[in-house]
C-alpha cells in the first residue's frame, strides 16, 4: 500500500507541476469567462454610441411618434437616438436624398431614414448607413416605424389600437418538469439541455484526456526503460494502480479548481462581470451521479488505455489502437439528440446499461428524464462489475506487455499471455 502511495505521489507531482497542466487548468476558466463575457461586452460597447440619424419624413406625421418611440437611453443618461427632421419642401426630393447621403459619407450623421408619403399602403421605408449590419440598430428602427404605421392603419379602420394590442398579446408558455419524487422544477427546455450537454461534454473530454495521458505516460516509461527498474521493488498491479489513481487525482484536482472557480463565478461573478448563469441548472443529486459516473467511467476507460499503453511501443502504434476506444465514447455523443428526444426509448435504455456507453448515456438519462431507480442501480452495478473485470483482464495484459519490446503483439498472442503464470 505504501508503495502504491509513493507511486501515486510521484505521478501526481510530476503531472501537476508540468507547465502544460498549469496552463490548461488556468486557461480553461479564462476561456469560459471569455465565452460568457465577450459577446455581452461587445454588445455593450456597440450601444455606447449616440446614433445621429436624419429623418426625411414625407408623410409629415411619423417623425414625432418615432422620436417618442425611440427613447432608449445610454448608461450616461443621454438619449441613444438623436433624431433630426430634415425639411422636405426646400429641395427636390432626389437632390435632398443625395445631399443627405453625402452627409453619411462625411460621417456627419450615422444613419438616414427615408419614409415615403405612401408608407401606410406600401409598407416600405428606406434605411441608409455606413454599417447596415448592426442588427440591434436595424431592428429598433424597423419595429418603431412598423408599430407607428400599424397603429395608423388600425386607427384609419376605426378600431382602437390599444384594444387590438391587448387582443393580440402573444402567448407565454412555462415549461415545468415533473420528477418521480413529485418535485417540480420550473426550467426552460434550453437550460435543461444546456447543462446536460455541458456535463456530458466534460465527461467525454476528461475520459479521453486523462485516459490518453495514462497511456502516453506508460509508453514513455516503457521506451525509457524505467518500468523494469520499478518492478525491482513493486509488482505490476501496484504500478498500474499508481498510474490510474495518480492520474485520477490529477483530474480531480483540475475539477476542483474549475468547480471552485465556477461556484465563485455564479456567486459573485454577476456583480463584476455581465455573465449569464441562467442556463446552469445543477442540482445536488445530479452532482452525486456525475461523480459516480465520472469515477466509474474513468476507471473503466483508463484501464482500457492502460492496456493499449502496455501493448505498444510508440505513440504512433497507439493511435491505431485507441481509435476503437474513442469510438465507444463518440457513439453516445452521436446519440445525444435521440437521448434528449426520447430518453426512455428501448435503444437508449439498453445502451445506458452497456458499460462502454453507460457513463454518458445513463448520466444523460438521469439528467433529462428521471429513469426508474432500478435501472440506474442496474447500470451502476453492471458498470462496477465490468470495471473490476476489465481491470483484472488489463492487469494480465499489463504485466506481460510492459516487458515486451519490439514488434507489437498480435491479438492471438495477447490471448496467450493469459495462460502465462
Amino acid at each position, binding site marked *: 500500500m*505504501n*508503495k502504491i*502511495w*509513493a*507511486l501515486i*505521489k*510521484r505521478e501526481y*507531482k*510530476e503531472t501537476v507541476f508540468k507547465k502544460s497542466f498549469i496552463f490548461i487548468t488556468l486557461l480553461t476558466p479564462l476561456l469560459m469567462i471569455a465565452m460568457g463575457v465577450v459577446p455581452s461586452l461587445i454588445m455593450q460597447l456597440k450601444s455606447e454610441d449616440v446614433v445621429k440619424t436624419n429623418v426625411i419624413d414625407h408623410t409629415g406625421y411619423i417623425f414625432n411618434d418615432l422620436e417618442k418611440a425611440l427613447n432608449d437611453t445610454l448608461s450616461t443618461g443621454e438619449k441613444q437616438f438623436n433624431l433630426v427632421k430634415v425639411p422636405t419642401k426646400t429641395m427636390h426630393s432626389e437632390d435632398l436624398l443625395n445631399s443627405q447621403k453625402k452627409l453619411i459619407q462625411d460621417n456627419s450623421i450615422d444613419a438616414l431614414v427615408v419614409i415615403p408619403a405612401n408608407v401606410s399602403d406600401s409598407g416600405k421605408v428606406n434605411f441608409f448607413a455606413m454599417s447596415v449590419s448592426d442588427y440591434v440598430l436595424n431592428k429598433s428602427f424597423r419595429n418603431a416605424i412598423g408599430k407607428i404605421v400599424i397603429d395608423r392603419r388600425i386607427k384609419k379602420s376605426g378600431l382602437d389600437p390599444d384594444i387590438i394590442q391587448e387582443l393580440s398579446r402573444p402567448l407565454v408558455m412555462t415549461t415545468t418538469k415533473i420528477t418521480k419524487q413529485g418535485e417540480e422544477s420550473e426550467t426552460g427546455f434550453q437550460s435543461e439541455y444546456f447543462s446536460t450537454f455541458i456535463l456530458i461534454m466534460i465527461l467525454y473530454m476528461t475520459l479521453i484526456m486523462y485516459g490518453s495521458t495514462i497511456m502516453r505516460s506508460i509508453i514513455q*516509461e516503457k521506451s*525509457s*526503460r*524505467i518500468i*523494469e*527498474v*520499478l*518492478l*525491482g*521493488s*513493486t*509488482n505490476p498491479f501496484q504500478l498500474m494502480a499508481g498510474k490510474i489513481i495518480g492520474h485520477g487525482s490529477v483530474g480531480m484536482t483540475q475539477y476542483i479548481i474549475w468547480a471552485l472557480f465556477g461556484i465563485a463565478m455564479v456567486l459573485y461573478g454577476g456583480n463584476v462581470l455581465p455573465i449569464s448563469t441562467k442556463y446552469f441548472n445543477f442540482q445536488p443529486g445530479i452532482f452525486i451521479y456525475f461523480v459516480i459516473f465520472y469515477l466509474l467511467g474513468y476507471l473503466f476507460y483508463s484501464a482500457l488505455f492502460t492496456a493499449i499503453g502496455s501493448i505498444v511501443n510508440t505513440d504512433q502504434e497507439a493511435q491505431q489502437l485507441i481509435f476503437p476506444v474513442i469510438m465507444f465514447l463518440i457513439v453516445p455523443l452521436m446519440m445525444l439528440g435521440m437521448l434528449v428526444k426520447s430518453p426512455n426509448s428501448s435503444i437508449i435504455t439498453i445502451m445506458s446499461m452497456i458499460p462502454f456507453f453507460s457513463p454518458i448515456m445513463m448520466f444523460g438519462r438521469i439528467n433529462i428524464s428521471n429513469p426508474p431507480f432500478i435501472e440506474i442501480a442496474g447500470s451502476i452495478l453492471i458498470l462496477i462489475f465490468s470495471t473490476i473485470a476489465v481491470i483484472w483482464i488489463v492487469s494480465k495484459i499489463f504485466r506481460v506487455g510492459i*516487458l515486451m*519490446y519490439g514488434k507489437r503483439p498480435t491479438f492471438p498472442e495477447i490471448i*496467450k499471455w493469459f495462460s*502465462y*503464470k
Partner: protein
Amino acid sequence: MALLDVDDICKSFGNFKAVDKVSFKVEPGKIYGLLGPNGAGKTTTIRMIMNILIPDSGTISLFGEPIGDKTKSKIGYLPEERGIFQKMKVRELLTFFTELHGLPATRGKQLAYEWLEKLELSEWADKKVEELSKGMQQKLQFASTILHNPELVILDEPFSGLDPVNVNLIKDIMLEIKSSGKTIIFSTHMMEAAEKLCDDILMIQKGVKVLDGPINQIREQYGKNSLRLEYSVDVQYIQKSKAVKSIHDYPNSAEIELHDGFTPNELLTDLLPNIKIHSLLSRQSSLNEIFLQLAGGNDNE
C-alpha cells in the same frame, strides 16, 4: 544456509523454453556470476528471482522464505534495460526509491542526504536528473537500487553499454558492496569481467545449466595445463617429451597441453639441450575456453 536457493526452475514462452530445470545456490558474502551468451536465459532467471516472472515449475527461496513481493525489499535490482526518471529532481528521485523499497519517507530523506554525500552529488541535489552527466546518472541509478541496504544485490549485465570509466566505477561499487558483507549476483556475457570479479559462477546456455561452482575449482577441474612456446629447429623434440599430452604446431610456435601432474619445468628439461627457445608462456584456460569446451561452442557469439 544458502542465501538464495534456486531449485529446478523452468520457464517457457509459448513453445520456447527459456529456462529448463536450472538449480543453483548462492552463498552469502560472495559475488556470484551468471554467465552465458546472449539469449541463454540469464535475464529470465533473474526476473524469476525478482518475482517479475513466475516459474512454470520449481521453487526459489531467499533466506529460506519463498520468493514474493515481501522478499523484494531485501533485494536491490538493477535490470539490464535501465532508465531513470529524467524530469525528477535528484534528491526526490532518491527519496522516491527509498519509499518504493518500503522505507518511510522520513528515512528516505535522510538516506538521500547520506548517499548524495557519498556519491559527491550534494550540489546537484535540487537539479533535474537530465542535467547530470551519464556517469553521474549511472552512479545515481546504482544508488537508487541499493540505498535501502539490501542483503542481496542483483545486477543484470551491469557493464553493457558503458564506457571504460563507468565500467570501473561500477566494479568499484561492486567490490565495496562485497566488502560490506553483502551478496551480489550479476549476469554477463563477458567472461573476462566475470573471471576477475566472481567467487562462484553458473554457466547456462539455451536455458540449460552447463556447470556451476567456485571459480577456482572449475578452473582446476576443467582448465587445461597448457603452454605456448616459440622456438626454432624441430617439433619432433617436443613430441618426444613425456610431459606433452597434445600439441598444436604452427610455424615457429606451438600450443602445448601437458599431462596432469607435469609442470613446464619437466618439459623444459627435455627441450633445453635440443632446441632454441625464444619464449615460453604458461597460461590457464579462460572461462571462455572452458565454456566453449563444455557447451560445444557452436552458439557462442
